């Protein structure tokens, strides 16, 4: 076994785990993603020109840009409701998910009993229940926030349960010797251990909440990016459709980035050291 492997070339070792510097996102670090996005836009523009793709199928970036600047005021105005719905939905959904996860971890029976119900609920196509929600909660923000919450709660529930359980045996034994209550174990150990999982799921939930708010606006709304999407589709205004989706996606990317930033500020210790 050893001889056959001997002459294999090793060009690169694994990265040096120590001395990793905590870098904050600077302009320099932002250049690459911006460059990639610009590159993709150029490719898209080129494809549109070369293959002569008609606007009504896929508009070119230039057309989307025109639509974006023409409709800027309207787009911004309709960004607010969607933003509010997604942020509140995000907050609500994740709060419920975290509380449920805590319940599940404290009381295994609850997990066995309720997790299937949660999966069940998660699989209900939102657009199918949206009308029911509109009937129950009216036309305002409430049903949209609920839908955004519904769609962002599940990743956090699953990840958070796993995260709260990912505590190392040593720490549990330590707290046991100290006769810590379950609550104390939760607050002094599990919460910290779960943070990497929590932040991963918050990143997933960030996108979900935006999507949820948009889908919710397809029913029972006269404002918001989702409403604009429906209108633009109905009017075959593909440039506006793509402009609206661009605004929504930028919103999600910023949301995602913000959570990454918060994570860097919160998780300052090195969790994987053998302590």
């Amino acid at each position, binding site marked *: 076994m050893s001889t056959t492997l001997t002459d294999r070339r090793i060009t690169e070792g694994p990265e040096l785990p120590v001395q990793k510097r905590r870098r904050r996102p600077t302009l320099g670090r932002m250049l690459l993603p911006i460059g990639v996005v610009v590159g993709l836009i150029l490719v898209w523009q080129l494809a549109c020109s070369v293959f002569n793709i008609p606007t*009504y*199928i896929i508009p070119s970036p230039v057309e989307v840009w025109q639509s974006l600047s023409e409709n800027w005021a309207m787009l911004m105005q309709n960004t607010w409701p969607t933003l509010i719905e997604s942020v509140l939905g995000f907050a609500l959904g994740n709060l419920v998910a975290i509380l449920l996860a805590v319940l599940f971890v404290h009381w295994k029976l609850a997990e066995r009993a309720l997790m299937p119900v949660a999966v069940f609920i998660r699989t209900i196509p939102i657009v199918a229940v949206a009308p029911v929600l509109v009937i129950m909660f009216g036309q305002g923000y409430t049903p949209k926030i609920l839908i955004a919450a519904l769609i962002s709660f599940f990743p956090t529930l699953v990840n958070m349960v796993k995260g709260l359980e990912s505590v190392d045996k040593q720490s549990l034994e330590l707290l046991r010797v100290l006769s810590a209550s379950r609550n104390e174990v939760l607050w002094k150990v599990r919460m910290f251990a779960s943070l990497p999982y929590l932040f991963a799921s918050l990143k997933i939930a960030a996108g979900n909440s935006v999507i949820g708010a948009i889908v919710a606006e397809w029913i029972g709304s*006269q404002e918001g990016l989702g409403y604009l999407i429906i209108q633009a589709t109905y009017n075959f205004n593909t440039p506006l459709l793509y402009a609206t989706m661009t605004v929504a996606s930028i919103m999600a990317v910023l949301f995602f980035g913000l959570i990454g930033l918060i994570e860097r500020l919160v998780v300052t210790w090195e969790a994987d050291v053998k302590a």
Partner: protein
Amino acid sequence: NAAAKQANEGKSAGSGSRNVSLQLGWLISEGQLGEAVALAKGYYADNGIKLSIQPGGPSIDGVSLVAGGRSQLGEVSSSPSLMLARSQGVPVKTFAVGVQEHPYAYVSLPNKPVHEPKDLIGKKVGTQATGQILLSALLAKNNIDPGDVEVVVIGADVTPLTTGQVDVWTGWLSNVTAMRPLKDKYVSMRLWDAGIHLYGYPYYTTDSVMSEQRDLVEKWVSATAKGWSFARENLQEAAEMVVKLQPTLKAEDIAAQGEVLLKYAYNDATKTDGWGTMNRDVWQSQLDTWTELKQFKGTPPKLEDFVTFDVLDATKEARKA
């Protein structure tokens, strides 16, 4: 051009018969009574056509699929879509309409009835996001201040009306299954009767199919017209043919809905000009209304851009038969 290419492939594929694909804007329903008959009874085959039907759905109206060459022919729910599409440069043309008077209506309960447009004043109208423009058109046509009518956007179901959250619900009168909770105790006012004359189920194709394969479109219209006229006479049998296309449907539902739809598919105009006919003035009034309501980005399309009477003219005899 992809559509032409596909059609050519179709030509070489069959033994004499050509593949034609019809893209729907919605699922297969009573709107396909005629097509189902023509398929089942071989009217298409007689005309050298092998028809396949592609369903649309809530998330897809199919216009860009036809424009993009996936299908040669298409059908949408309502005529304004095609005007709007053309105004955005989508090269599609309507060549026939399935329903002469659109069954879209304002439905209310007898205790708070809406019989005529002015009854809408002070009412709360629940409609879909895409129905708002229809209400605006209606109000403008009848000189009603939009501020006097409250509009809320709801889903497709009638529940908000039954629960009293809205006073008026909008939908297709043909959609009898949806209105079952109202148990026939409802008042309806058609958009058509309020002065907005829309067509239902317009058929369209692309400019290039129109110029390169007109004969195919004509043959298809002739066969379809024959199918519809059979369906009109033998509704039950036709409904079963629809169910054969789409086994998840129920024949009695299709028949009940078809009955309503047929009332509007055939009227005085079809008596003289046959199934599928179109009236230039009706189209023009739609175009004018939509222009007045500033629904077109830039210059409004011209009638000739999105409507062609050529197919109707060439198939007049066949459609009357």
